[in-house]
């Protein structure tokens, strides 16, 4: 009897702790943001007037619910700036993700096929950059990409270019920054899925007449697909909302939703519109997360 209650308690704690965590740090903040997005801007501190006043009781709440308008969300559709920011973010993040996949796959593959003893060292090297502040590493790229930076000096010194390249303050610089910063998030899940692959499968393929290059496409790639999907999502989702990299490496014409959100919030002090931008971004990103969840569930099923 007692043990039964203990297991029930244990199970409750097991589910309860993460549930509490998610409620406190995801659901509640999101509710606050939604609430602000439905409010009116005013010149005050904080600069919005809440629609809901929870202390006024249930009747007032129900009445407020009836008065709700979604004018901030409607506003987002009237100014093309917002749509363009979203699309440009997706384009930059998508292109960067593709480049990271192309660069990260060979790295992860080489790591997974390296001698077992050196693999922990290689994993360490991949995560080593995290030991330095992200901000400092992005600043360093400013020094590299500037007109008189390392890259132009090196290329000029080698006689490869006569005029310095204008890379800093362009979308290219933003993508270089994203590729550099997010590469480990691609390499690690790819490595994990490639490392656990049974190499006798490749021998079996060769045995049945499959040359090595084809075995890579027919066996290795399909079996590493879960790692590819996980890596792409881990890179793409934060890259869409990225603010620091476009702010430091991008130009004034670099459109990314993180930057737009920041200027709504701090320059225009329009909290409701900024919140609406954030809500739309989150909802949009739920789509790829949903796809990922679906694939994970299928993978779990397959592994059973």
């Amino acid at each position: 009897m007692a043990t039964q209650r203990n297991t029930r308690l244990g199970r409750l704690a097991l589910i309860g702790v993460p549930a509490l965590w998610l409620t406190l740090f995801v659901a509640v903040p999101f509710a606050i943001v939604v609430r602000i997005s439905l409010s009116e801007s005013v010149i005050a501190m904080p600069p919005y007037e809440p629609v809901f006043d929870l202390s006024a009781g249930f009747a007032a709440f129900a009445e407020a619910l009836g008065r709700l308008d979604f004018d901030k969300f409607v506003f987002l559709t009237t100014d093309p700036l917002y749509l363009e920011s979203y699309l440009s973010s997706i384009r930059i993040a998508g292109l960067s993700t593709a480049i990271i996949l192309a660069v990260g796959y060979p790295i992860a593959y080489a790591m997974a096929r390296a001698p077992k003893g050196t693999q922990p060292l290689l994993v360490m090297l991949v995560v080593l950059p995290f030991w330095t502040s992200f901000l400092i590493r992005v600043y360093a790229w400013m020094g590299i990409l500037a007109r008189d930076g390392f890259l132009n000096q090196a290329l000029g010194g080698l006689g490869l270019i006569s005029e310095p390249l204008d890379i800093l303050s362009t979308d290219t610089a933003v993508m270089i920054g994203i590729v550099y910063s997010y590469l480990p998030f691609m390499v690690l899940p790819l490595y994990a899925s490639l490392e656990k692959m049974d190499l006798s499968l490749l021998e079996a393929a060769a045995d049945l007449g499959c040359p090595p290059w084809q075995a890579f496409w027919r066996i290795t790639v399909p079996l590493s697909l879960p790692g590819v999907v996980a890596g792409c999502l881990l890179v793409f989702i934060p890259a869409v909302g990225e603010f620091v990299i476009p702010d430091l490496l991008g130009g004034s014409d670099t459109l990314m939703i993180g930057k737009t959100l920041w200027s709504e919030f701090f320059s225009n002090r329009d909290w409701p519109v900024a919140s609406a931008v954030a809500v739309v971004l989150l909802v949009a990103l739920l789509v790829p997360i949903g796809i990922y969840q679906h694939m994970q569930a299928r993978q779990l099923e397959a592994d059973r």
Partner: protein
Amino acid sequence: MADVIRQQQLGGVRREFAPWTDPAAAPLIRFDAVTKRFGDVAAVDGVSLDIYEREFFALLGPSGCGKTTLMRLLAGFETPDAGRVLLGGEDISAVPPHLRPVNMMFQSYALFPHMSVAANIAFGPKMDGWPRARVDARVGQMLKLVQLDGLGARKPHQLSGGQRQRVALARSLAKSPKVLLLDEPMAALDKKLREETQFELMHIQYELGMTFVIVTHDQEEAMTVADRIGVMDKGRLVQVGTPAEIYEQPNSRYVADFIGDVTLFKGTLEGRDGDVALVRERTSGVLLRALAGMADAAPGATVWIAVRPEKARISPDPLPPDTPNVLSGEVFDIAYLGDLSIYKVRRPDGTFMKASQPNATRLVERPIGWDDKVWLSFAPEAGVLLTR
């Protein structure tokens, strides 16, 4: 034991097939003084072996003796450090695995987990560029052969261990390779399924007329399925022969002991009496007689006589004085196996000897019991003289 008898019955069909006795026959597979080292360990150590077309050959030996490595040398996954591997008379040492007309059934099955059963079986034929219709027909045929009709759409993880083993077999057979290599194909199956599969394999091999090389550490399995057996020890091939040769004429204590039950008498060779060698047993001082056979040892050398339990006679009464090789002792242990009983007898010098006796009559007049004093003997032709 039962398998030995079965093999001999089956031998009725196969007695004609013995290309290894024909000096003019060209082997399909030839290992020519092949050595393969991993670091300091010679996994395969100077192995020379001929295997003939349509032969069912078994590589037998304890775990780690180099069976898998020898097979991988043939499949092309390892390259020899010394020696040559020939297939149909051509040196294939430099041919990569995907170009060798040899297929292998892996010990781990190595089924492609992301492909259906049908796609797994179709993989080889597709790689060879067979037309679609022919591939499909072949897959159907293979599924039928291994009795998996209707399961073509399943993924490997949806199958039982025995079914997976069949898929692996079907996949390796699909291209009708010249040679099929089977690496402990039945290790993961339970005893009953294993026995059924052994007979199925023999049937398939006979029907398809292919050359099978099977790796196993199970001597009964090797005796059941194979035309010839190669016994391995620490990378070396210590004896090659038919199951009966290996059982009846082992060439070393290692082989005698590895295949079946045996009692070994250690002694000094004193001389010969015609075909019969005279051996003075070390522990008891008894003079034993055994056929000298091929063994070439000088008087004074240390030799062993191996006697199979079923070739020893056991009696509750003293034996007539002219009986050769009479020993005595007390019954230490009895194993009743239904069709026969095996007696383990403790001799006065502390050594043991095994003798078995068929339980032919139900009512034995004077049954032999524990601690009974018994007399043992074996004919000189029943003892095998061993020099190593």
